[in-house]
């Protein structure tokens, strides 16, 4: 694998305290992807017209928010560690402006775009109650929050093509699992329909 670590297992390029941030960056990147996949999947489900008691939807919303918050925190750790790491050589400007990195600029750039998408998603998520209060807010909220799907896709590609550990067997399985979770949840949502679709109210089915 052609990556800065020089090896597919990523462990033979160096050891010791100098590499700590590098390990954190890689671990946090993978963890962030997993958490983002879970919260995106649950997010697709909580707004779907799935049958079930309202209380289970409340729990699902709570999970969605909690996992999403955690994912954003871990994503922040990933970015911070990359910036802090002398080995990765990603400067502030390279991180902020997509496609300017020295290493695989396109695929690293997708990561930058994914961060922007999830920042937007996080902000709209926090403002949900407030946006419901105005006509334009309610109209635009779903559209803006749907940036999560784009962000998730970008993050997956970013990880696959610029991630150090993408060649490792179990990491590949992890990527596949992320794909299956999100694709499955989105499919479920498309099949049962989003709110306002032309079906009976959820309460009327019971």
């Amino acid at each position, binding site marked *: 694998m052609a990556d800065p670590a020089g090896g597919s297992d990523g462990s033979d390029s160096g050891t010791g305290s100098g590499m700590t941030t590098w390990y954190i960056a890689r671990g946090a990147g993978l963890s962030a992807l997993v958490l983002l996949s879970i919260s995106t999947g649950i997010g697709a489900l*909580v*707004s779907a*017209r799935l049958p079930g008691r*309202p*209380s289970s*939807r*409340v729990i699902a*919303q709570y999970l969605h928010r909690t996992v999403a918050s955690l994912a954003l925190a871990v994503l922040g750790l990933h970015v911070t560690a990359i910036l802090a790491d002398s080995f990765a050589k990603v400067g502030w400007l390279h991180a902020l402006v997509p496609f300017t990195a020295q290493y695989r600029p396109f695929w690293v750039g997708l990561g930058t775009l994914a961060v922007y998408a999830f920042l937007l998603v996080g902000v709209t998520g926090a403002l*949900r*109650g407030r*946006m*419901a*209060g105005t006509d334009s807010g*309610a109209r635009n*909220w*779903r559209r803006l929050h749907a940036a999560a799907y784009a962000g998730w896709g970008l993050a997956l590609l970013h990880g696959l093509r610029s991630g150090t550990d993408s060649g490792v067997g179990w990491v590949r399985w992890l990527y596949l699992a992320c794909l299956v979770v999100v694709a499955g949840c989105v499919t479920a949502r498309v099949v049962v329909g989003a*709110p*306002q679709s032309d079906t009976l*109210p*959820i*309460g*009327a089915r*019971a």
Partner: protein
Amino acid sequence: MRLEIDWTRCDGSGLCAELLAERITRDEWGYPLIADSRVAEDDRSARRAVAACPALALRLAHA
């Protein structure tokens, strides 16, 4: 403040009735019936219900 429902958005998911059981019940089709729509400025459970509505149909309006 007053709880209001945008009836064109509400799809009767019942979350508001779950979160605000003391003031919201559901009719025979599952749509919310608000017993008392007046809400105190610092009512956190009402704000939580507004944020939780899957259809973005529940809102707090200034009375």
